[in-house]
């Protein structure tokens, strides 16, 4: 018991999460973001195009031009918004917790300590798979509001992160080689 100390904690001396250098997401992730929006956009444009083709007299010419300008402005705004919000997204892993920051209008930082993570999952959507991207999701017992998903990671990085977190949750036994665990998860956890 001679090692026991109980010094008062100086709050200012604690490691500061806000000073951690965040790592940006993979630039390819912008494509995924844009693709998600483009589906909606195609639907809108398609709708107006068919209307224009079959029933041009529904609106006067000025209104048609306004609609066209509106769609173009919306498109430009969307691209700018996506790019800006992409640059706001970032993540970091510390010794004891994971940090993810996002949001252009409302900047949100979520922090989950590793000793509260229940399990880790690796997701790959359709587009993400084509681009070689993946996302890692950390689940806690706090319900869906406190789960943390880091999107737009290179598959290799995502796998490393997943293994890192799994090891933090359940430290591997000495005699068990880690490689086996990683190949196993690679086979089972890849889903959309």
């Amino acid at each position, binding site marked *: 018991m001679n090692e026991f100390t109980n010094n008062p904690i100086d709050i200012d001396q604690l490691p500061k999460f806000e000073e951690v250098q965040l790592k940006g997401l993979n630039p390819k992730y912008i494509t995924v973001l844009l693709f998600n929006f483009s589906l909606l956009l195609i639907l809108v444009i398609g709708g107006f195009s068919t209307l224009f083709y079959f029933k041009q007299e529904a609106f006067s010419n000025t209104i048609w031009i306004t609609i066209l300008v509106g769609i173009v402005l919306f498109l430009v705004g969307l691209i700018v918004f996506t790019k800006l919000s992409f640059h706001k997204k970032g993540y970091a892993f510390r010794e004891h917790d994971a940090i993810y920051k996002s949001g252009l209008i409302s900047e949100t930082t979520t*922090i989950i300590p590793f000793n*509260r993570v229940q399990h880790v999952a690796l997701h790959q959507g359709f587009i993400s798979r084509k681009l070689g991207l993946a996302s890692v999701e950390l689940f806690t*017992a706090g319900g869906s*509001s*406190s789960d943390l998903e880091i999107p737009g990671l290179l598959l290799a990085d995502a796998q490393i992160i997943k293994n890192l977190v799994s090891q933090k949750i359940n430290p591997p036994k000495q005699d068990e080689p880690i490689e086996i665990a990683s190949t196993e998860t690679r086979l089972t956890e890849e889903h959309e």
Partner: protein
Amino acid sequence: MNKSVDFSQPQRQSLPGILVMFANSLQKTVRALWPILLIWLVKFDTLNKLVFFGSVAGVVVLIGIISYLQYLFFKFHIDDENGEFVIQKGVLNKTRITIQLHKIQQVNINQSLIQRLVGVYKLEIDTAGSDKKEASISAISHDLATILKERLINSSQQDTNFNTENILEENTTSSFITIGLPSLIKIGFTSNYIKSFALIFVFFTTILENLQQLNTEVIDEDKVTNYLDTLPVITSFLLVIGFFIGLILVVNLVRTILKYFDFTIQKSKQAIILSYGLLSTKSTLLNPNKVQKIKITQNYFQKKLDVTTIGIHQASSDVEKVKEKDQIEVPGCTENERDAILKLLLGQLPQKGKMYLPNWRKLAVNSFFFLLLPIVITLFLNQITEFVTWKEWILYTSIFTVFTSILLWYSFKNYRLFVSNDFVIKQNGAWDIDTTIIEPYKIQAIEIQQFFWQKATNIGSVTLSTAGGTVSFTTGNYTEIKQLVNYWLYEVETWEKNWM
């Protein structure tokens, strides 16, 4: 344990359970065939009586046979080898539910009216896993239920506590707190106004709708309106208001007493047992380790009468769905009892520690959204439709303004966050003042949030997620919040204590 019951062999429920199953199935059938039954009842005279009673009797016999078969095929046992509780059931579709004992979170013994008549109890098992399959035994004698409950709960504790044998022997439960009728009456008169109002409202609208559909004139609407018209406006207004207030109070009182009659908290060695209810007795087992969040509610009247309500939120796997069940309410305890319960659950009385106040802009933003915006909207609407005269509009608006201003001011004044080493306490509310208590080591995730326009004024919010719900503090000093977050992270990451 002198009453040693062997749970390792599959066994059936107690025999009167058939009746319970019969009643349940009958209820389900009636509920499913409700529209048909209604049509039959309306057209009763034109029906062939023989066919009618024949089919009713047939259905009843069929349900009886099904109930008997269900009883026959329902078996449960504890598999000590694998540490599982197993339920087998199903007549045609066989179901086998296995629950790992260490995952059992809570075992409830309840009694509905039918079960009370027959003299059996229902045993429900809650698990912590994400799988939503639920296990319940709907007919079991009280002795057996208690023994099984102790067995299940104690086995689920085994990894943290090894002296299970001792616990079983020292199974002496001592009554800890009993909440008497006076406290319940006090609570009934002073809380849940809005809930009861909603209930009454729904009740009346359904009744009125049904009456209109059936075209019967039980209450002559015109008569009531005529009677009210003969009185001066103020008197009739007060009469209606008074009637509703009285009704709400009575409904409140009856609901509270029915639900919480004879509320007792018993403390056994391992867990806390709550039992309550007049018509259907509920008994809930509560494990202090699994309590994540405690919410104390008290309003001005209740403060004067010395009663409070304590809400206990336990860890739940599915935050949206199991909310009701994992939230236990202790109604009407005095200050001393409240402190005793808090001590029991937390091990010590929570200290408030350092106080944090929201920025004054919180009041401004709330005033804008809840005061200014509604007024502007009604102003515009009235401009267009001229629904009421401007004199009336000014009258209503000033009443609304006074009322809302008071509420906003008090909700701002009461909005506080207290942080000490062992506790995070948040206080909020205008009339009903909620005090939410969580322990930092039970935090699962922390989220801080800031709108871009808040950067200049250095304001932000923080949300702490626990397995029993979240606590958030908005529009606070962002620098202070960040400091607190660092401190909480430090606590979560260094404390060895298990959060559940």
